[in-house]
C-alpha cells in the first residue's frame, strides 16, 4: 500500500523513477522532484501548499480541482504533475492581487455565488477561462462554460449571476445590481 506521503517523498522508496518538474504557478517559478504518477492536484495542494484548489470527487466529474494550464481549464486530478512541466498554471490563489479581489471573486461575493464554497475555486477558474475569451457572454454561454463544475448548494442561479456581474465589471459597465440595490434578498430566485 502506498501513501500520499510516499508519493510526495519518492526518495523514501528505493529505485523509484523521479522527474524534476518546473512549473510557473501563479506567476512564480517552482520546481519539484516528483514521481510521475503524482497528480497535479496533489502537487499543488500538498507539494506547493496551495490549498485553494480543492479535490472533490477525485473521479474527473465535479470540477472542484479545476486550474488553468496555459490559460485553459483542466481538472488537476486528471493531469499528471509531470505533464505540467514547462507549463504555466493558475490556481485560485493567482486571481487576487495582494490588495484587490479579482472581479470574478467580487462577483461571487456580491451575488452570493457560494454557500459552502467547496466548488467555488473551480467555478471561478472556469469562469475566468470563459471571460478571457468572451467578455460579453449570454447567460446560456455562462451556464455552458460552467457545465463541467458541480455545485451542490446554490442551484447555480447565483453563480451564473456572479459571472455575469464580473463580466459587466470587467467590461467597465456598472453591474446591474450596483445600480439597483433594492433587490438584495439572498436566494430570491430559484
Amino acid at each position, binding site marked *: 500500500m502506498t501513501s500520499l506521503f510516499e508519493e510526495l517523498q519518492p526518495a523514501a522508496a528505493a529505485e523509484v523513477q523521479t522527474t524534476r518538474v518546473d512549473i510557473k504557478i501563479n506567476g512564480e517559478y517552482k520546481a519539484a522532484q516528483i*514521481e510521475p504518477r503524482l497528480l497535479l492536484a496533489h502537487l499543488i495542494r500538498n507539494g506547493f501548499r496551495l490549498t485553494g484548489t480543492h479535490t472533490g470527487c477525485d473521479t474527473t466529474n465535479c470540477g472542484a480541482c479545476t486550474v488553468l494550464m496555459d490559460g485553459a481549464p483542466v481538472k488537476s486530478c486528471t493531469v499528471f504533475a509531470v505533464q505540467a512541466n514547462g507549463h504555466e498554471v493558475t490556481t485560485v490563489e493567482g486571481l487576487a492581487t495582494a490588495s484587490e479581489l479579482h472581479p470574478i471573486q467580487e462577483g461571487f461575493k456580491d451575488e452570493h455565488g457560494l454557500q459552502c464554497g467547496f466548488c467555488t475555486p473551480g467555478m471561478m477558474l472556469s469562469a475566468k477561462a470563459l471571460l478571457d475569451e468572451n467578455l460579453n457572454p449570454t447567460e446560456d454561454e455562462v451556464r455552458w462554460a460552467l457545465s463541467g463544475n458541480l455545485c451542490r448548494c446554490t442551484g447555480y442561479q447565483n453563480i451564473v449571476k456572479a459571472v455575469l456581474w464580473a463580466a459587466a465589471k470587467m467590461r467597465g459597465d456598472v453591474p446591474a445590481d450596483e445600480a439597483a440595490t433594492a433587490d438584495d434578498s439572498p436566494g430570491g430566485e430559484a
Partner: protein
Amino acid sequence: MFPSRFRYEAPTSIEEAIALLGANEDAKVLAGGQSLIPMMKLRFANPALLVDINNIPDMGYHRADADGSFRIGALCRHADLEKSTILREHQPLLAAAAPLVADPIVRTRGTFVGSVCHADPQGDWAACMVALGGSVIAQGPNGKRAVEVKDFVSGPFTTVLARDEIAIEGVVPKAQGTRTGGYLKLERRVGDFATAAVAVSLDMSGGVVKNAGIGLVGVGSQTINASEAAAALIGSSLDDEAVDRAAELAAEASNPRGDHRGSADYKRHIVSTFVTRIIANVQRSEMQVA
C-alpha cells in the same frame, strides 16, 4: 486516489514513441488522458510504462485536404474541434457532436483520436466515425496502415491496434455530394454517460441521398454501426417512408440493456426518435438555405 507506480517517457518523435511501445510489453500511450488517468486511478488499468505523446510536435491539427478528406491529428483536442469554423463548414456531424463530448473542462484536454482508441461503447467520436465511414491511421515500425473505424473497434474498450502501433490520425473520407447530418445525445446531466446517442451522416446530391451512415452510442456492448438503417436512406429523397424505415431499423440494430437511465424499450425508442429528429432538422435547415 492515485495510480500504481509506472515508468514515464515523453518522446519527441513518433518513431521514438513506437520504439518504446515495441520494447515494452505493458506500455500505454498517454494523449489527453481523460479516460486513461481515471482508469489508472481506479486501478482498472495498471500499465508499467506510460508513453506521453504530448511533446511530439505537429499532431494537434485538424484540416480539410484538397482531396476532399478531413484529417484530425492525434493531439487535436475536443475543444479545438468545438471552436473550429472549418469543421462546421465541412463536417456538420462532427461539429454537432463536438460540444456534447464530456464536459467543457474535459474537452480542453481529451483528444478525438484518443476517444476513438479508448473504444468505450459510450464514446461519441467512434460512432460519428462509423457513420462517416472514417478511418484511423495506425503507424508502427513498418509504416502506416489505414483501418476503418467500424473494423478498428473490435469490442468494448478493445481495438485492433497492435502493441507497437500508435493511432496518429483520424481520416474522414470525401463527401459524395454535399455532406450533412447531425448528432443527438440524451444525457441526464452534462458529462454523464449517455442514455443513448445517435450519429447520422448524409451525403446529398440533387435532393437524393448518395451515401449515409448511422452510428449508435450507449445502446450495446460496443459502438453500433446501423448499416441496414443507413442503407434504407440511400437513393431516397428522405421521404417519410424511407426515414421511418431507417428509424425502425436503427432501433432494431440497437441492443440496449435496461438500467437506471431507462428500460431497454425506452432506449430503443430514443434511437428511432433521434434518427427521425436528426433528419427532420437537416431538412429544416436545407429549407432555410433554399
